[in-house]
């Protein structure tokens, strides 16, 4: 039961983009079309799953003082692997469209965040499921954002025109400001749903903890400011 929860929490309850608000850079930058969002999400999922498993295995012997550099080396290795694999086997248009953002998965907060907050404290099986769930939650959000942006801007989905006769592109949704607006609306909608659900159950909605500054110890900012709650 708890294993299932490790997997499903990333999809909704602790969705990395819409609840934890991590990894917003690729979310805004590459989701101009549904295909790009899906490709980026799957690449990140691969890195997240692999790094989570490896880090949960080696976490027991990594000296505390240098754990962050070690995690970054592990993550960077898997990012380079997916970069090479995509260069060799993915459609060239997809690789060109994602471009630099594949390499930038290294600095994606979701990957390091899950390594520090989950994988380093849990066994490989749970870390694998956590990585898979978080990755798929990320992929779903990116693909959904991509579908909305692509549809609003060109009337197509996955590069197939759904509304024929939509010949002039609408530029706002496919540009960065439009991405901000759309992701903002999605965030608001997610918060509204969660709040309403909590109210119906007669509870107070508390966002998941563990990734805000009071609970994360990647830097010492939270330790300095913390304790006062």
């Amino acid at each position: 039961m708890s294993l299932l929860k490790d997997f499903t929490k990333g999809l909704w309850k602790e969705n990395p983009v819409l609840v934890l608000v991590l990894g917003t850079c690729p979310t805004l930058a590459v989701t101009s079309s549904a295909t790009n969002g899906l490709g980026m999400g799957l690449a990140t999922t691969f890195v997240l799953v692999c790094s989570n498993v490896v880090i949960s295995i080696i976490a027991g012997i990594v000296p505390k003082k240098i754990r962050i550099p070690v995690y970054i080396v592990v993550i960077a290795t898997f990012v380079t692997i997916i970069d090479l694999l995509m260069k060799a086997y993915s459609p060239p248009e997809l690789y060109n469209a994602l471009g630099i953002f594949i390499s930038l998965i290294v600095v994606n907060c979701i990957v390091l965040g899950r390594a520090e907050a989950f994988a380093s404290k849990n066994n490989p099986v749970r870390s694998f499921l956590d990585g898979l769930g978080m990755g798929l939650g990320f992929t779903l959000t990116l693909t959904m954002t991509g579908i909305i942006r692509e549809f609003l801007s060109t009337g197509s989905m996955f590069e197939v025109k759904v509304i024929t006769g939509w010949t002039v592109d609408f530029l706002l949704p496919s540009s960065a400001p439009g991405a901000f607006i759309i992701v903002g609306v999605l965030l608001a909608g997610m918060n509204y749903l969660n709040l309403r659900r909590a109210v119906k159950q007669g509870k107070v909605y508390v966002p998941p903890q563990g990734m805000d500054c009071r609970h994360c110890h990647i830097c010492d900012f939270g330790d300095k400011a913390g304790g006062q709650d």
Partner: protein
Amino acid sequence: MKLKETENTVVLGIFLAVIGLIAALALAFISQLTAAPIAAAEQNATNQALQKVLPPFDNQPSANTITVKDPDGREVIFYGALRDGKLVGFAGKGSNPQGYAGAIEGLVGLEADGAVRTVLITRQSETPGLGTVVCDRKEVKTIFTLFKPSDKKEGAVPANRILDQFAGRKAAETPWRVSKDGGEFEFQTGATVTSRAVTALVWSIARAFEQNRAAVEAALGGNK
């Protein structure tokens, strides 16, 4: 003292070095494994682009190349297409740094007499919806045509209003400019910079061919 709690700088350094070494070995292995597929994929992309811009050929244009300078000193790679041992066309690959967002790379197919045949933009990072209208040759798929067999002719490329107007032109004709600058080429409203860059790119490749014609023909001519 346990490794996990150690603060000995030397031990920490060695640990990090070992991790780095393992990562480097893993990457070297993967890099070697993917080297051949990556080269094949790049080759494939070049070949597909060449097939689109050149008349039917029976040699390997990607292996039949010469690099020359265009009038502005930038490098242009010419590919020669042969059929039955005769030159039937050329493709020039060059780039122009004056796009709206960085360089624009293009492949221009030329007839044997130097007239432009087909223009293909191979790399760009222009504004989606404006600059890309100038650069993209994309087939518009709709839900109605999705499951129909395509009735596309062999070697045909999807139309593009801007790129298609260069077909049949020769470098020697009047300066190539967009109509806003007093030339005779149409431009895309909202993407004047991109239109200018693409026009300049095609012209520079055509001129590079015209200026180095003898050398290019001699190098790519095959067995006459």
